[in-house]
């Protein structure tokens, strides 16, 4: 299990991570989402021992990660900006990794290379962006570590290849019970990939839940009452459980978080002309959550101008 305890990391007075804590249980796919500059990559770098936190600690099964080769043998990081040894091809990189990771499987490497139709003898500098990403993933999977860290995993991959890579990760998790931590800007990717999702904003952890729980706990309602109901009245009706309320005439759109069923019952008591409960995609939940945190842009580019006013 990865335990992140009260991590704080600042750069030149800018707090990248602020007293952040979380736990990542073994055998899960853990997704990290957040706005730009939320601290996702910094958290990943702290977790993989690239950065030493200003305060707090990161443990892998109770062992600190920073400057600890024994712990680092247990994970592989595929960073956002890939790096390969100058002039290296996949074979050389495989040999290089083999020296560091005791469980590195050349058999698995060859199998994956063949499956993805990658030329292992060709210099990586000649690979396209997507192919480089594939190569890095293959090398990481061949290391057969206990933990994977993928930063912007699917960036540059086409849909088929995304599915393939996802499948490969799933297989590894199923077979060996490994843990994967993913960051991605594409919430759709994480939607049906992750078991658990954490939302970061301004260096803080907004929430960390299982994906299914997030989806079931958050619903979108569209209500039309016979008489006019103001935003304040509706908010009062919901007992503060609505995350965002938008009134367009007598049509009210709202996002309901925990206790949605109870709120729904209260709304029905008011005999609405129309009441629709719609499921939310992860992307929508993310958007609404961010809006609730004041992270949104109007058309003039002003941050946090519209939705927060409607709350």
């Amino acid at each position, binding site marked *: 299990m990865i335990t992140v305890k009260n991590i704080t990391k600042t*750069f030149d007075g800018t707090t990248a991570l602020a007293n952040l804590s979380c736990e990542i249980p073994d055998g899960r796919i853990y997704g990290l989402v957040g706005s730009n500059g939320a601290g996702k990559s910094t958290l990943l770098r702290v977790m993989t021992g*690239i950065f030493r936190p200003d305060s707090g600690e990161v443990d892998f099964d109770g062992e600190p990660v920073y400057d600890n080769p024994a*712990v680092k043998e247990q994970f592989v*990081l595929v960073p956002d900006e890939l*790096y390969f*040894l*100058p002039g290296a091809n996949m074979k050389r990189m495989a040999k290089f990794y083999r020296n560091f990771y005791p469980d590195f499987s050349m058999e698995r490497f060859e199998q994956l290379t063949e499956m993805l139709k990658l030329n292992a003898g060709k210099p990586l500098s000649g690979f396209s962006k997507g192919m480089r990403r594939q190569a890095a993933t293959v090398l990481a999977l061949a290391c057969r570590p206990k933990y994977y860290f993928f930063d912007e995993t699917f960036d540059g991959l086409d849909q088929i290849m995304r599915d393939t890579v996802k499948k490969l990760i799933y297989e590894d998790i199923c077979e060996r019970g490994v843990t994967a931590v993913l960051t991605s800007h594409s919430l759709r990717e994480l939607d049906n990939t992750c078991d658990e999702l954490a939302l970061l904003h301004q260096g803080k952890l907004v929430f960390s839940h299982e994906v299914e729980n997030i989806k079931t706990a958050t619903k979108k309602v569209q209500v039309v009452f016979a008489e006019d109901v103001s935003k304040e009245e509706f908010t009062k009706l919901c007992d503060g459980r609505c995350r965002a309320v938008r009134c367009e005439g007598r049509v009210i759109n709202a996002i309901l978080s925990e206790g949605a069923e109870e709120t729904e019952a209260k709304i029905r008591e008011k005999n609405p002309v129309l009441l629709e409960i719609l499921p939310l995609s992860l992307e929508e939940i993310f958007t609404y959550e961010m809006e609730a945190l004041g992270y949104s842009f109007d058309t003039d580019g002003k941050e946090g101008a519209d939705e927060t006013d409607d709350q």
Partner: protein
Amino acid sequence: MKLTINKSVYRDSLRRTRMVRIVSLLAGIVIAMSSTDYPHGDAYVSTGLAPMGTAAVGMLVFLFAGEIAIHYYRRRRKWDFFRTLPASRAEWYWSSLLAEITNMAIYITVTELTVIPASFRAEKRLEGNLMPGKLRIYPPEHIHRWILLFVIGLVFLAVLSVIRELAHTAASYLVLLLGFIGGYWMVLSLIPRAVRSYSGNFVSVYASLFYRMRLLHRIVLATDAYNAPTKNLETAYDTIAILVNLLLAVLLLLLGRRLTKRSETEYIGAEYRNKSLFYILCVLINLFPLLLISYTAILGNEYTGNLLMVPVLIVLIAYFLLRLFREKLSKRILGCIGLSVLLAGGITAVTLLYARLGRTIPEREDVIAMRCEHSFYGMVSDEEILDRFYAVLENEHDHPVTERHEYREMKITLYTKYGCREFFIDRDITEVTNDIRRDVPGGVFCSYGKKPLISTQFDSFEEYETFAALLPDWCRKEVPVYYVNALGGLSKSGKTINIGVIDLYRARIQTPLMMQNSFSPQNAVYCSFPPDTEAAAYYHEKVCLPQKRAKEKAVRENPTQKITVVLRKEEDTYNSERYKERWYYTVLSFTATIENGTFRQKSGPGTVTFPEEYLKTMYDVIFGPEETITAETETVMVTVMIRDEEAYSFFVPAEKLKEILQYSGDERTAEQKRREEEWQKRTEEQQQEGEGT
């Protein structure tokens, strides 16, 4: 930090720089083979250094370019990548460093190997087919150079590693690197001066970069590099050195402030940065010169200019130390001081060793010619040798002995493509008479590689040895052997050889290998390496002629010139009866000016009229083409002083000069007349005694 090595990292680092080694090797071979065509007869010595120096520069360019590229493009990604791999920071650091050291060792070894065939080739070109034992001097020097290069490389790489850890961007890396090299260079340029007193009164003159640039500049402008006193050049260098040091100090200070600020702001790589390390580097850089300058000051070295830097450096160091204190890093302060002392001590020790060996930093110059002169002389101390010498003179040649002198110091001027350098070396012999001092050897043997430096008869050392074996015992003398090294310096080999010490009446025993004290610059041209006419031509065309033309131009452009003309008729060595028929000339000296084309005498002994109609002739004599002088021509040496700065000497036929100056007869000095009369009186007495008996 624990010294741990990770084999994978080591192997990888080694592998990554493979191309650099291959390219360096190829470049080394090409340069080594092409350098044997060097025209001035120094291929034997220089080929050993030429490829090494040039290839080393090439390698450094590669190294720096690679480092800068990494800093510019890949630093963040590279370190992110490395830091995620299961190896500790210490392992990365030490393994990479070890790999770089290995690279350096391989590089130097390989480059050295490329020199060997080149040396054989050079040997063959110069002296025909190889003979057994030809290269016997070569290997020790080779190894010595190898070790030195290795040590320098080691220090350099260590510092490079520290700098790499400190730098955040390509620009800061470059500035730090240049700062370090600048500081290091300053240190190296100071140490040789500081250790003169440890070098057995002899050390190769260190030619700094500025010194070379200065000389080069003078040569390019065809000015007076050949007559400029070394002291002036050193002063110029000194001034520049101070400015550079000041600039360096200010740059480091500014950079330090900037880096310490940035170390908090930089996003990526903040973990690797350690601002205390930066302070250590700054203090190291600044502490070296301080220590060494203080050292030279204590020793009373003449290098005083840089002493001005002491207060500046003290302030700088105090500033850094205060910063360190403020950050409560007392351990680091102690470590810093310890490191400084250790490193300064190490460098000083190496330099001392070098000074002992008469070496300098590997740089080379092209020696074209050499002039030797005795700067002063005193009384002879070894009476026994002197008595035997005089006995030989008087018994075998019936020659009188009037004065006894001993040269204690000899000045040797090396003329190179880049200017002249003066060396003062002690002589360990000499018993001479005033009258014959011109023909008495200077007591040193100079060679360039295996070539006697000044000779008209011997092409090789072996040939000389054959000749020396024929010398009778009484005129043998062991003298030290100096040689002009490929660095343009004069080195003492530690060996002695037998030389003939007497040249009586230019007969019997010739001593063509010895230094003569009457070399004029003109003679020096033709006394350069015997087979090397190209060098002589180069010297004449590139140095003598431009000098001559410049003076001509200066005089013609400026109608009012103060000219001091010293006329001296050639004085015969011996005033014996046998050579009574020889001329005795009086030294004439006068100062004159040329005003609006009219030559006016101002002062001088005796009355010398100088008719206007001869003015043109005088110009021709002084500044025009030289007269053809044969062996039989009686000549007078004319020395022209312009503005009391420049000396220009040449020989003109005495008859012509008489005509010009209306020279009238015998103008012997009173002293000469007295000596002649005394000698005649003594001869008459001897004759009377003989008749009496």
